């Protein structure tokens, strides 16, 4: 129910965005965000973008796991 899907913003017109979800295009409302821009990845829930996905943080999370020492 809280399922939210990452999508890339293609273009913005007012409070509406055209987004791409794995190549499929759809409209999403930006009325719950204040600073989204084309090129951003956002989480789409029930037709609304609810957050911008932070790519630096995404990489940081992976980096932490990469540094876990393997067990021999």
């Amino acid at each position: 129910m809280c399922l939210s899907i990452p999508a890339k913003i293609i273009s913005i017109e007012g409070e509406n965005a055209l987004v791409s979800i794995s190549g499929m295009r759809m409209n999403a409302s930006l009325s719950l965000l204040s600073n989204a821009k084309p090129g951003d990845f956002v989480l789409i829930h029930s037709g609304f973008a609810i957050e911008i996905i932070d790519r630096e943080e995404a990489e940081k999370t992976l980096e932490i796991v990469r540094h876990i020492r393997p067990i021999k």
Partner: protein
Amino acid sequence: MYPFEQYHSKALCQALVDQIHLMADRPLRFMEVCGGHTMAVRKYGIPSLLPDSIMLLSGPGCPVCVTSSLFIDQAIHLAAYDRMTICTFGDLLRVQGTNGSLEKAKTEGKDIRVVLSGLDALEIARQQPEKKIVLLGIGFETTAPTTAATILTARKEKISNFFVLSAHKLMPPAMEAIISEGIPINGYICPGHVTTITGIAMYKKIVENFGIGCVVSGFEPLDLLQTILMLVRQVKANQPKVEIQYSRAVKPEGNPKAMAIIEEVFETVDEWWRGLGILKASGLKPRDSFQDFDASEVFSLPVYEISEPEACICGDILKGLKKPQDCMLYGKNCTPDNPVGACMVSSEGSCQTHYNYAGIN
């Protein structure tokens, strides 16, 4: 390119699994309270990767599963009004009320439509001003701001034939109720997208009052395994705290704009949860200033007694007290094709998820 594949990396997941096995030296029970996590845990076979000492429990994180028969009965009652269209998210369609489901009402000729967004319901209201459109608002903090924003749009555009019957619920009262009932857990796998909206402040009370750690998790296998490792580490260090594993989508402060919109449109009310009963200030209802959009104010709604399907143990399953396979109906009288209880109706309910990924045993 957003690095999704890496969150499924076998090597990285294995490193986490190895660490968890190394660290886990005592029986531990972690509970997730999000239907998305219930599904992801089963889909990726996470329990099979963990040591026997770690048990994962599913809590009341599926909105359809915790919704009462009263709500379904009221929605069916509304559907009988003249020129009425009921808009609902798909999962709710087959939940049983006292006398049947919305699906049954639809087959009897009532205008009941499945929508993917509140905005779809609003569009129907724009296109058909002669009809009354009621959106069934269910879902937690993730979905509540979308309903609130839809109501604000309706007001702005002066759309007077759009209404919401709200059963929106808030997660923290249910998380506290689980612990207060004495259900033994050692940590919460906190709902990622709920926390995207709310931020983490609401979990501090759980840590401070109950000494139970809270880690906000993403939905990929690497996310879930890393979250479990973080919780194991907290228990071992005897330092329960609030941590964010899902930092790419969750900021400590959440989404203030979405929270402000919830606050503007809704007020809290006491709400009934399957398995937990009535929890104080755990539901959301449109404020008086928005009562023109509140179906429970505009239309006269009977108050029905809440009924539960006979022999269904969904309530205990939602508290982590029983497993789907403990139910005498599971896989026999109750299957995804022919569900009895709400936990088998919803694709993210414990029973349906278990049935889909683990079979009938």
